[in-house]
């Protein structure tokens, strides 16, 4: 009896102690946003093959990522929404963008092709406010004189769960519509005036596909993979653009990411002529005082910036433009972690 107990105790201790000790040296733990999870894990897999370092990323949501890094339980956190410079200062954090994504408006109108329907920002806001109720509304018609739109009621589809996608989209509506700002506001979850809620990007994609005359918003990748009908949007320069790698890259290149503000920027209505108006970077958060861990994280992202663009594009993420990568490397150097 006694010996069995002793063996058991020793075994339990061994299990608890050994993996931590051995692996702590070449393992990076991160947690946060679910949107970049596929690309981070693809990068992590390749990085592990190239260098032997393990990057373990858990997609627990941006809110969780921010909390985990603030409490210093992970080596890096990830958030779809940028933290304001004051929050960065308060949490003693560092912040830089890692990859770009964008939100596209998807619709289900019989016979309509992708990129055929043109919408300006105000129209989008009014649709999601429930003020434009029918597809043949005068405001939509005037922007699409050649399209034949029938008198069908619009069903708005939005996210039912809290999400970075919603944060980017509502932030966009906040910026373009004072009425939206007053009535609803921006955040990871908001009180939607109209519409039905669907869980996750895949949920919205599914509902829009299934519901005639619906309109929703999803991450670019989901519109692409599910072959959803997307609309053109009018950008800040006044041109109607469609979602593509080019228009996202133009947005990223003309957006004013400033290292002094820890790159705090909602990449909305970027000034570029071909810029897609609803883009957003997803961010990495580091604990400022943990220099050793930060060096390892930065080495990983530096490697990914160098070798990961192709992988990112395969997964329909937009890599950062070279100029921005250089600014981020300068930021790392200035912070003493590269």
């Amino acid at each position, binding site marked *: *009896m006694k010996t069995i107990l002793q063996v058991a105790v020793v075994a339990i201790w061994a299990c608890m102690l050994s993996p931590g000790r051995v692996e702590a040296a070449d393992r990076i733990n991160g947690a946060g946003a*679910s949107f970049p999870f596929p690309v981070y894990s693809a990068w992590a897999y390749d990085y592990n093959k190239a260098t032997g370092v393990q990057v373990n990323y858990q997609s*627990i*949501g*941006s*809110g*969780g990522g*921010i909390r985990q890094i603030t409490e210093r339980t992970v080596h890096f956190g990830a958030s779809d*929404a940028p933290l304001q410079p004051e929050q960065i200062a308060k949490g003693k954090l560092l912040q830089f963008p890692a990859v770009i994504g964008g939100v596209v408006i998807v619709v289900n109108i019989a016979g309509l092709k992708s990129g055929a329907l043109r919408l300006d920002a105000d129209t989008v806001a009014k649709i999601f406010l429930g003020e434009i109720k029918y597809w043949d509304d005068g405001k939509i018609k005037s922007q699409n004189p050649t399209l034949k739109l029938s008198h069908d*009621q619009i*069903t708005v589809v939005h996210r*039912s*769960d*809290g*999400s*970075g996608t919603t*944060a980017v989209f509502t932030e966009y509506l906040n910026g373009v519509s004072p009425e939206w700002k007053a009535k*609803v*506001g*921006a*955040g*990871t*979850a*908001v*009180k*939607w005036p109209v519409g*039905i*809620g*669907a*869980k996750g990007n895949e*949920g919205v994609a*599914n*509902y829009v596909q*299934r*519901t005639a005359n619906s309109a929703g918003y999803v991450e670019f990748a989901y519109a692409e993979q599910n072959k959803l009908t997307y609309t053109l949007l009018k950008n800040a320069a006044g041109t109607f653009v469609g979602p593509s790698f080019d228009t996202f890259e133009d947005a990223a290149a003309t957006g004013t990411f400033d290292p002094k503000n820890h790159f705090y920027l909602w990449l909305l209505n970027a000034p570029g002529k071909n810029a897609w108006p609803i883009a957003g970077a997803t961010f990495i958060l580091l604990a400022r005082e943990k220099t050793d861990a930060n060096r390892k994280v930065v080495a990983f992202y530096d490697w990914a910036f160098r070798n990961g663009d192709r992988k990112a594009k395969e997964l329909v993420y937009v890599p950062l433009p070279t100029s921005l990568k250089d600014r981020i490397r300068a930021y790392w150097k200035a912070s003493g972690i590269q």
Partner: protein
Amino acid sequence: MAVTVKRNPGDVIFLSITAVAACTVIVFIIGILFVLIKESSLAIDKFGVIDFLISTDWDPVKESFGALTSIYGTVVTTALSLVMAIPVALGIAVFVTEVSPNFLKGPIGIAIELLAAIPSIIYGMWGLFTLSPIMGNTIEPFLKSATADIPWVNVLFQGTPMGIDILTASIILSIMIVPFTASIARDAFNLTPDVVKESAYALGATKWEVIKNIVFPYSKLGVFGGILFSLGRALGETMAVAFVLGNKHQIFTSLFDSAATITVTLANEFTEADKDVYLASLFYLALVLFVMSFVFLAAAKFLLLRADRRYAR
């Protein structure tokens, strides 16, 4: 039992291990309650108890939170699912205990247990991809047109049938709780003493009369306890309904409306709750559910104990 037993060391170790194991349950419950109260203290301070329970507002942007819409959604989906599940479950239990030939009892019992073993996420995906299109395209338009002229009833079937609503969620829930209710009801029916049943048959009672006058009265409390257990299960069910309920915080009147239950709200909003009050309010909702479940399950246990005491002499 053990006063006169000679204590050997192995026994002592074994007994203390089981005692520790038993205590962990209590420690966990108290620990969870403590954490829920601690984490929600911010929201408790800000919104109070009564105001939080009766407020219908749920606005993360303005940081104004109330539980009533979630409680309402929870209670309505649970009640509806019970209404649909109980007749089926009792039917199964009666068939298995009283009617069915012996060779069928095994397969049906196994089928019920398999139904209970399906993970709730499977029900959720099945609900989203299979049931909800059927509901939205066929069943709900039919219900809408069939009830259009009946006053009061037509209120329940107003709006556009989307298949993503209270009705679909309640049906999924009812399928999930049928096995629980059925197996507890079966056990309760089996508690009826054979002697009494045989006496009734000897007096010339038909099968229906025996079930109605002997089995049902004998097992009333047990069955009721089983229903309350299923109710507890339906109250806490999350993933099965998270996909088809829409998580919309509103007081609804139509079964075609989207709604939110407490667990659906938690599952949908917990990960991205980025403000302290928001997170605290979600913990507060969890606390409300904890208390609700506790009350229901305590009532169920109490009834089952009374049933046992009365009949299992």
